[in-house]
């Protein structure tokens, strides 16, 4: 059976389009925002939703997403609640793939088998854990594969060629290329450098390649869409949500602000030539 993620990339390829993958943290800025926000993002052109699982020690995040984790935890949103949100999302959307992104410990605590069962039951398609590299992945992978979920691996600018092959050999769904050395929300994107790295990865795999970290707006999204199959937008969107909520906007207005940014980015991607 083709996974929802693989299927989505096949459809997009057939249409000559690139995937837009927004990242938001479950429960940020408010518990009631997340599910309607996910639907609104799909409406605005998201192809896959990446839902962050709040964690007390988000080691790979820059300040913007760290604060989102803190807000979500203050709203008492945990892994179980994130799964409930996906379940609620699935009541109206059975086609958009949902990827959970987070850190090892909440998944460890729930137990790999229990997580895999609960996540598939909720309608989650894949897991990406920042701090479970291939060396540590066997246990969780066995459970994810048992229930037909994809495990999304990261490849970094520092990943040597031999290691790229090891990673792509275990990956399914797509490969997430981290565009810069650093935390989320940092730095400037060097598109030529990204293109060179993607070419190296393509020598080892036919999986679609998505690029994240450092994509802020329509222009950077378009540049990445010219060389990758997918574009991940995180900090910029999370920042938009935070600013809107901090200014006292209603949930509807906050969602509308986020949609505005995502729509611009969608147009940027669709304007790319490849």
């Amino acid at each position, binding site marked *: 059976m083709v996974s929802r993620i693989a299927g989505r990339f096949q459809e997009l390829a057939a249409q000559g389009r690139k995937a837009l993958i927004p990242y938001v943290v479950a429960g940020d800025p408010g518990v009631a925002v997340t599910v309607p926000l996910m639907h609104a993002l799909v409406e605005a052109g998201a192809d896959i939703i990446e839902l962050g699982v709040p*964690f*007390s*020690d*988000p*080691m*790979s*995040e*820059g300040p913007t997403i*760290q604060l989102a984790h*803190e807000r979500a*935890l203050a709203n008492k949103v*945990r*892994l*179980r609640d994130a799964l409930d949100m996906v379940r609620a999302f699935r009541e109206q959307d059975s086609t958009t793939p949902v990827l959970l992104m987070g*850190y*090892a*410990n*909440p*998944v*460890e*605590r*729930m137990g790999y088998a229990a997580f895999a069962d609960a996540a598939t039951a909720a309608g989650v398609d894949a897991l990406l854990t*920042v*701090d*479970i*590299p291939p*060396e*540590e992945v066997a246990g969780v992978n066995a459970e994810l594969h048992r229930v037909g979920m994809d495990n999304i*691996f*990261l*490849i*970094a*600018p*520092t*990943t*040597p060629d031999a*290691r790229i092959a090891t*990673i792509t050999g275990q990956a399914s769904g797509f490969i997430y290329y*981290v565009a810069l*050395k*650093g*935390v989320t929300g*940092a730095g400037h994107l060097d598109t030529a450098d990204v293109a060179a790295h993607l070419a190296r990865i393509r020598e080892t795999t036919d999986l679609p390649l998505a690029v994240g970290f450092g994509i802020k707006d329509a222009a950077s999204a378009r540049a990445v869409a010219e060389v990758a199959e997918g574009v991940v937008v995180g900090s910029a969107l999370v920042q938009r949500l935070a600013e809107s909520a901090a200014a006292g906007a209603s949930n509807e207005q906050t969602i509308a602000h986020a949609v505005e940014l995502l729509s611009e980015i969608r147009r940027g991607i669709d304007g790319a030539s490849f």
Partner: protein
Amino acid sequence: MTTEIDKTLFDTVPDAEGRFGVYGGKFVAETLMSALAELESLYRKLSNDPEFQRELDEDLAHYVGRPSPLYFARRWSEQIGGARIYLKREDLNHTGAHKVNNTIGQALLAKHMGKRRVIAETGAGQHGVATATIAARLGLECQVFMGEEDVRRQALNVYRMKLLGAEVIPVTSGSKTLKDAMNEAMRDWVTNVDDTFYIIGTVAGPHPYPEIVRDFQCVIGREARAQSLEQTGRLPDALVACVGGGSNAIGLFHPFLKDDGVAMYGVEAGGHGVATGEHAAPLTAGTPGVLHGNRTYLMQDEDGQILHTHSVSAGLDYPGVGPEHSWLKDIGRVQYVVADDKEALDAFHTLTRVEGIMPALESSHALAYAGKLAAGMSPDQHIVVNLSGRGDKDIHTVAEIDGIQF
């Protein structure tokens, strides 16, 4: 008690993946994996290189002032009336704690890797000071991450680091203590991995750090073993050390692991009491999980969120512990116990008044437990306590608790 443990086990950890049984490993972002591999291969090469060992030994002798004495605390032992208590005087090292044994070693690794910048996390500030010191000596740029709460309670050490030319970066995220400083150091490392060496201050973090830091700290136990034989004609009956991340404890314990007759006690911070939940005792009251690059016992809730910790001593205020300790607990070779804030403060005052030695509040946890342990033993037995650091840095904390203002 320990006779059933297969002694060959101790030589098998960590394994090639950096595991101590089910603990340890390399749970970090992909960006750091090649840096860890590079560190490991360099360390394998240098640790077998006599020239590197000579360089390290020379620094330990002439810069740190090793060997540190093993001191018989006669008056305190007589007061207790039980086992004789010997103190391994890591407080007499240059910079005032055991931390420097490790920073010297890692800074030499940094130098051999050609890195121009070092970073560190610090709780009590002792590791930060030790790192800033060695960075000054080697002419390396140095930035130290320290929780805002610790910056406040360890003001003296913050100023020491500044005098040494390091930049102290207060960390305001999360609980504003050691774990958050470590998060921030990891974030810096991932960003500046090309030119920066991360000097981790304890036997935690991803492989190969727990092994490297252990190896550098084992000088404590090797000396204590020889000194005990020389001074008493036999090995100690028990060893006692405080456990924050666990580096001074593993340094003392490791060279004795195969000695059946030597009991070992790692003392965690009981804070306001384990029953209150306000403590820093993951081995005593925690459960296994993954944090800061390794699998180990953690203070966490049922959803896997890391809990806030409390200890009067900043250096023990950490929700995790080095993975080798988790393994030693599970196999039963080391007993992990607690001393609470009050017991530690009492021990701080006792040692100061009775022996004229002012211990760090971290080390005071070990002293508190050792006092109780000695009371139940006989005068023909002896205990070695790791006096991991001196107490000057804690004078403000103690004064504040005693209601004294300067």
